[in-house]
């Protein structure tokens, strides 16, 4: 749209604003100029009296100008605002207008009022009305007596919990969280191999309860899930427990208020909970993986609903997971791991890293089955109390990893099917080839630091089939 004037002075006011009434004498001074002044009134055509104001009934002019406060005086040059002053501030108005001695008898300054464009309902409406990128998803009109939350259930869109109804206004607001246009095709999402656009992710992020600033994390997570290595088709279809576990690193954690401390894997933090949920809703609604359909999990686990947390990098004795995976400490990333859990590790008595490493190894042997090796991967979430022991002893992540790999290099005779009186275990022919087996592959065991300050515990997040045979841990940068 174009402004009502191409060059000159323009002032946006409203009747419901004391400061606007205060500056009416100033408007009279401006009107005395040769080129005059255009007065734009947001709420009443007859305010201020005698100025023949332009009534900005739809607020399109104010929206175009980006008006946040009334009054605001603008200098327009060639159809664009080139200078402005919000509220009443004599020096500012004199700068914008190029006049001196304005508003004699008025105070030096007086704050203005919020522009009507900033009222929530108006803001959402205007955002949608003026979006340069119209949304293309099918519109679903509900009956007047239909409850939108119930309607989402009835249409099979939810994970069993209520969702926030994805109205156009909410989705438009969500899309403000990214610089990508809604029509941008992010990926092709298995199992249906459906095109997944930014708009579809935004709709599901609204439903999950995300704020717009979480959207870049969700977008990155969807890209990671759709990657060939992560194999979301297999993760969704398996009878196993796993779902996508999201580990967030870098500055974005603090920026969006994620919780890496007390109750880090539990309830209570909106970003932690809704980002993981949004990814699973996208997998369900766009990818087409629904329980009982493609998803044939025997039990499933909460990671199929939401399992997302940030690493406590600031308190960690070690480099972060993202740095281990080749990113810089100032880069924001999300890592996807096909997994479930956690399995608890209790050790309140160890006072040496050797002793604590033995505890971790004993519990890690349980992953999948104590007699299975080389199948699942694991992430150990090391608590601050446990991490302190490793810090004081100078144990690096590689040092701890070596220790545990060594402790979990086990006699094949104990691991094969039939050993210990149970048929589960590694194939018996392995006993002809080697004496020992290591529980985890060298890339199959990771450590991250998170959790509350009190408690001699750590947490094992155990994975599905790892590596190329199943799902590869996948890390992507959050950059949209």
């Amino acid at each position: 749209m174009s402004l009502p004037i191409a060059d000159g002075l323009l002032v946006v006011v409203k009747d419901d604003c004391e400061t606007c009434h205060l500056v009416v004498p100033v408007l009279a001074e401006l009107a005395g100029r040769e080129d005059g002044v255009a007065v734009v009134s947001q709420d009443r055509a007859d305010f201020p009296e005698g100025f023949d104001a332009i009534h900005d009934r739809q607020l399109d002019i104010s929206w175009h100008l980006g008006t946040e406060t009334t009054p605001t005086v603008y200098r327009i040059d060639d159809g664009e605002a080139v200078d402005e002053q919000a509220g009443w501030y004599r020096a500012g108005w004199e700068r914008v207008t190029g006049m001196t001695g304005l508003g004699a008898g008025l105070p030096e300054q007086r704050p203005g009022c919020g522009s009507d464009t900033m009222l929530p309902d108006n803001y959402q409406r205007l955002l949608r009305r003026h979006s340069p990128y119209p949304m293309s998803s099918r519109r679903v009109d509900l009956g007047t007596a239909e409850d939108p939350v119930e309607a989402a259930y009835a249409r099979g869109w939810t994970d069993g919990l209520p969702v926030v109804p994805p109205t156009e206004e909410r989705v438009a607001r969500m899309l403000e969280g990214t610089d990508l246009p809604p029509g941008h095709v992010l990926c092709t999402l298995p199992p249906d191999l459906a095109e997944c656009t930014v708009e579809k992710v935004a709709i599901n992020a609204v439903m999950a309860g995300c704020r717009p600033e979480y959207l870049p994390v969700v977008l990155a997570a969807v890209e990671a899930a759709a990657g060939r290595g992560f194999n979301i088709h297999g993760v969704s279809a398996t009878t196993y427990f796993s779902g996508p576990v999201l580990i967030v690193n870098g500055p974005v954690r603090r920026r969006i208020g994620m919780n890496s401390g007390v109750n880090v894997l539990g309830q209570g933090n909106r970003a932690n909970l809704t980002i993981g949920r949004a990814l699973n809703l996208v997998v369900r609604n766009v990818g087409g993986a629904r329980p009982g359909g493609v998803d044939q999990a025997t039990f499933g686990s909460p990671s199929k609903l939401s399992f997302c947390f940030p690493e406590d990098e600031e308190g960690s004795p070690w480099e972060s997971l993202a740095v281990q995976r080749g990113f810089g400490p100032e880069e924001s990333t999300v890592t996807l791991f096909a997994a479930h859990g956690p399995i608890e590790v209790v050790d309140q008595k160890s006072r040496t890293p050797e002793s604590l490493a033995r505890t971790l190894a004993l519990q890690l042997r349980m992953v999948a089955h104590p007699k299975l090796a080389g199948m699942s991967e694991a992430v150990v979430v090391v608590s601050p109390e446990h991490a302190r022991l490793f810090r004081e002893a100078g144990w690096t992540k590689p040092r701890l990893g070596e220790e545990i790999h060594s402790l979990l290099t086990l006699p094949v005779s104990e691991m094969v099917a039939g050993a210990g009186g149970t048929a589960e275990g590694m194939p018996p022919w392995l006993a002809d080839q080697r004496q020992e087996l290591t529980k985890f592959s060298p890339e199959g065991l990771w450590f991250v630091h998170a959790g509350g300050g009190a408690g001699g515990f750590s947490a094992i997040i155990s994975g599905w089939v790892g590596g190329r045979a199943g799902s590869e841990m996948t890390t992507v940068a959050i950059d949209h």
Partner: protein
Amino acid sequence: MTTLLDPTSERTTGERPISARPADLADGTVGLLDISKPRGDVFISRLDELLTEMGVAVRHYRKPTFSKPAPLDLRCQIAAECGAVIEALAD
């Protein structure tokens, strides 16, 4: 009136009729596809025995991993070489 945006891929499910069943297994080769799960080979071997006793020609195939769909090349090969296929699920 409330209007919501559809969160799904907006695809309609395509329906294809099941392909015609062979009238007689002896007319063509039967593929035996092991999906690489434990003990799938036990099931496949037994099927091999039973089909061979019936005079049916069999060919063996194996997916690289049970966790992913069969590669396209493998599916094309089975379609080209066999009149029917039996896929052994597992465990």
